[in-house]
């Protein structure tokens, strides 16, 4: 086999694998953000009256805003993070597919299906007994 071609292939494979790691790290970072946002949201809900004002750090600045408003902000952020994570997960699937393609491994089939968790769980429970 051609040396240049082999080298190219190895380079591409490594790059693809690296991209997967990057996406993985991004997902972890996003989940961290999700957990922290959730904690903040819970803390505001349990600790303070909605009419009171609370200290919120936005970037590097601390501002005092109404609790209900802060809660709304956090809630919106939670939704955004959730969506971003699921986007990243879909991206991850594409990347894994690409990597497997480069490695000459067969495609993983069925991961683009919509889940039928409840029925599938029952079926698999019965079959694995």
């Amino acid at each position, binding site marked *: 086999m051609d040396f240049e071609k082999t080298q190219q292939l190895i380079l591409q494979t490594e790059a693809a*694998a690296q991209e997967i790691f990057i996406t993985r790290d991004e997902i*972890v970072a996003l*989940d961290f953000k999700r957990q922290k946002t959730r904690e903040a949201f819970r803390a505001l809900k349990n600790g303070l009256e909605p009419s009171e004002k609370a200290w919120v750090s936005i970037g590097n600045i601390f501002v005092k805003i109404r609790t209900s408003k802060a809660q709304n902000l956090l809630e919106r952020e939670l939704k955004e993070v959730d969506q971003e994570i699921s986007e990243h997960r879909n991206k*991850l699937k594409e990347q*894994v597919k690409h990597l497997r393609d480069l490695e000459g491994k067969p495609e993983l089939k069925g991961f683009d*299906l919509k889940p039928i968790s409840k029925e599938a769980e029952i079926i698999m429970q019965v*079959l694995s007994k």
Partner: protein
Amino acid sequence: MAAIASVKVAEVREFSRIERIGTHSHIRGLGLDDALEPREVSQGMVGQLTARRAAGVVLEMIREGKIAGRAVLIAGQPGTGKTAIAMGMAQALGDNTPFTSMAGSEIYSLEMSKTEALTQAFRKSIGVRIKEETEIIEGEVVEVQIDRPATGTGAKVGKLTLKTTDMETVYDLGNKMIESLIKEKAQAGDVITIDKATGKISKLGRSFTRARDYDATGPQTRFVQCPEGELQKRKEVTHTVTLHEIDVINSRTQGFLALFSGDTGEIKSEVRDQINSKVAEWREEGKAEIVPGVLFIDEVHMLDMECFSFLNRALEDDMAPVLIMATNRGITKIRGTKYRSPHGIPIDLLDRMVIIATQPYEEKEMKQILKIRCEEEDAEMTEDALLVLTRLSLETSLRYAIQLITVANLIARKRKAMEIAVEDIKKAYTLFLDETRSTQYLKDIQDEFMFNEEDEPKSDVAMETS
């Protein structure tokens, strides 16, 4: 490579398999290269280059999964590797494509009608791929805090701190979660998962870092690594189940028990219709994929006229699998009729199939096969003995020669030799008759046997071989 937690590939359950040595246990695939060109000796396959090439093309066709209801007939004399080719195809298809293998005579049963047996075989060969998806929270318990109300009754509240190697977070707990935590006896140092949809908590084991917490631990304590990455994970698993399995689960009250007792009995056609429409619904909603598999019917000439016409019809269904049949018959009577037809199969069905012919093996190939079989049976053989055995197989049959390997191996071991020598083969040859010698022997002394009829037609005897 990258550990992908959220896109988890269906785990391969590992178990040590004790395989017995069967006639075709040395076959690992079709022995083709990427361009579908057959290699002379590969994956246990020897010779039959054109037939293997043809089988490879059929395999590609199956893998594409686009066409349903095609039929392939593998025809050839006894002992030319028809079943071997079918086995090779099954091996090459892998685990995710359903492959059902049956013998033509299996359909004759008192408990089940012939068409029911065939329908079940058809449905065993159609896979349905589905995906299961669960959001789980997975982490090591750092702390559990439970506030019990002073009165002793009423709602409890609490906090649960979980961590992975990358993060740590606190969850507020409601009454239900607290109860299931108590029920699972989850404590600091345990690695647990919480199903987001159902709230079910399961304990995976104890974290390694807490292994030295106690001097005395139960024998069933499992130690696991602290989970990595994100706390909230998405777990996706795909399954391929066959239509028949879904049928059985839904057809009876005892359900799955029938799968193992083997006594599935007849499945009502209403059940099948229901399942068909459910699967079609899933398919339309993008929730399931049909994986057409392969149904292999060996000794297909054992089927009778009714079965053949059933096959004709069944192949036209859009959920039909690829049907592979094998036969060693020439022009003979179709079972159940007085008509003669090539391979004992009606012409109209023959017209629907592509036919792969296998050729008798040549001497060189025979030698190669015998050598492979020797390896498979852990028998060492001298070069001379192998030559003698190859000669024998040319004069008698390949199957007889393969049988002799096992026998000769035992004889060699009895005389405490490491290798099978020519004398062992000779001994085995004198001890066990092959078909020709047995026939000759019978002819010589048949007057002394009981109930012999001098002028019985010979053709019937020859037909029942293999």
